[in-house]
């Protein structure tokens, strides 16, 4: 199996990473090399194997739904790429 340029562009769209043609061609080569290496798994018959879902054999715990940090709005917004004192700002999405 090999990955063509169209597939590379499709994956980049899904991954929300824009790439130009030169980068896409380079990536096509890299990905094909990596997948060739990954294909080795097909040597194994895994029909009767159960997929591993958790490495630690424990069940997830429940905890009380409690507020532990309060009044952190200002702190959180400090890391915002564009300032507007109470909100995160993004390009206009509704015309």
């Amino acid at each position, binding site marked *: 199996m090999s*990955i063509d340029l169209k*597939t*590379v562009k499709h*994956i*980049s769209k*899904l*991954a*929300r*990473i*824009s*790439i130009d043609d030169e980068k896409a061609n380079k*990536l096509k080569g*890299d*990905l094909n*090399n*990596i997948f060739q*290496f*990954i*294909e*080795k*798994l*097909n*040597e*194994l018959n*895994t029909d009767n*194997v*159960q*997929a*591993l*879902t*958790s*490495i*630690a054999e*424990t069940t*997830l*715990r429940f*905890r009380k739904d409690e507020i532990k940090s309060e009044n*952190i709005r200002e*702190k*959180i917004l*400090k*890391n*915002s*790429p*564009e300032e507007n004192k109470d909100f*995160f700002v*993004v*390009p*206009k*999405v509704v015309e």
Partner: protein
Amino acid sequence: MSDITSQSLFELTSNIKEKKLSSEEITKAFINRAEKSKKLNVYVTDNFEKAIDQSKKFDSNPNLDFKLPGIPIAVKDLFCTDGVRTTAGSKILNNFVPTYESTVTQNLWSQGAILLGKLNCDEFAMGSSNETSFFGNVQNPVGENLVPGGSSGGSSAAVAANLTPVTIGTDTGGSIRQPASFTGTVGLKPTYGSCSRYGIVAFASSLDQAGPMTKNVRDCSMLLEVISSFDQKDSTSIDYKRNHYSKELSKDIKGKKIGIPKEYRVDNMPDEIELLWKNGISYAKDCGAEIIDISLPHTNYALPTYYIVAPAEASSNLARYDGVKYGFRSPGQNLIEMYEKTRSEGFGDEVKRRIMIGTYVLSSGYYDAYYLKAQKVRQLIKKDFDDAFSKVDAILTPSTPSSAFKIGEKTNDPVSMYLNDIFTVPINLAGLPGISIPAGKDKNNYPLGLQVIGKPFDEQNILNISYALEDKINFKNDISDWWLSE
């Protein structure tokens, strides 16, 4: 008394407790050395001014009951530190200042340690040579233009160069053990669930673990004791009784059964690694351990499995970097264009490559062929270890298939770079504890490591075996300080 910065954690804490050294003297000694060591490029962000203030504060009212009393420590820049920039080695987090503290670093400060600064690493911990960092590559103090290993390359270099007494790194496929091996230091990846992942920038959540990186095994046991804890904030943290690792440390390994897996004898492995392994085996015998040949038949499938599972989890974890709430943003005409430009410009090539692999294997129509297949093979790999551990107490292998290589030597060939982790990746896939200790040198005088793998939660046992081997091996890291400037 030997030079302050070359002392082990054990020596420094003893000297503080016996009032032979102050926290301020120690902190300033490490800072002075760091100022002359910029060529190694270990620091992404330093915290020197605050560290000196904190050391003075410690000295004014020292609490000597702490396990790390007034000890300055630099940590990998993957741990969120409250109020101190945390970049994960990426442009996309270049300006990110966390408003919370990771649990493992909090554990350090709660025992009296002081933050020296944040250490360079591969971008989002994706790499085996520290060459994918946005902040440039790190020099291995062992020799000029050698990689320090990765992804915890700034950490391994800082310990080897005496720029921090000890440090903590993270290990997803070998990122603590491989750099430890490349720099002649000790690095331990604990059992999955032993150290909290809360506040660590996530790479592959089912594989990531934090762990100690130190000059010797005793320091490693001291640091593990501090960072390993049950944590409500990490849903995969496991509540079990942790050992008093440093107190229970013992060289008595008489009668321990140590397995030697035949599948770890790979093609083209240098003779010196084969010899290193043989020496390790004979030292273990000298200590009274019983050597047993074992088989881990699916070893060869571990790397291909890892390169499905890890990128898949990474592509999900890294979906959060969209330029909206924090980090780097590249402006766009609309929201989608902003996302695409932000991620294209904010991530480096290796990270993008892995996001693409992950996105592909999880995409519609390919999930069963890749991701599900890999999780099945992962089950087989885990079963190999379960079977082996019904016969032995621990497993001894080389840590890496080679010593440190030159900067730039493998950057154009991702697959050859991935092969570095051939002996370390299976341990993450099975969630086991593993430690790398320096065990010898190759013909260029570069360090080589041996790895001891344990049963889940059996860190004490692998520490003890390492402690016994360390004594026999008597490794000396002769580092010439070639990088120092005035």
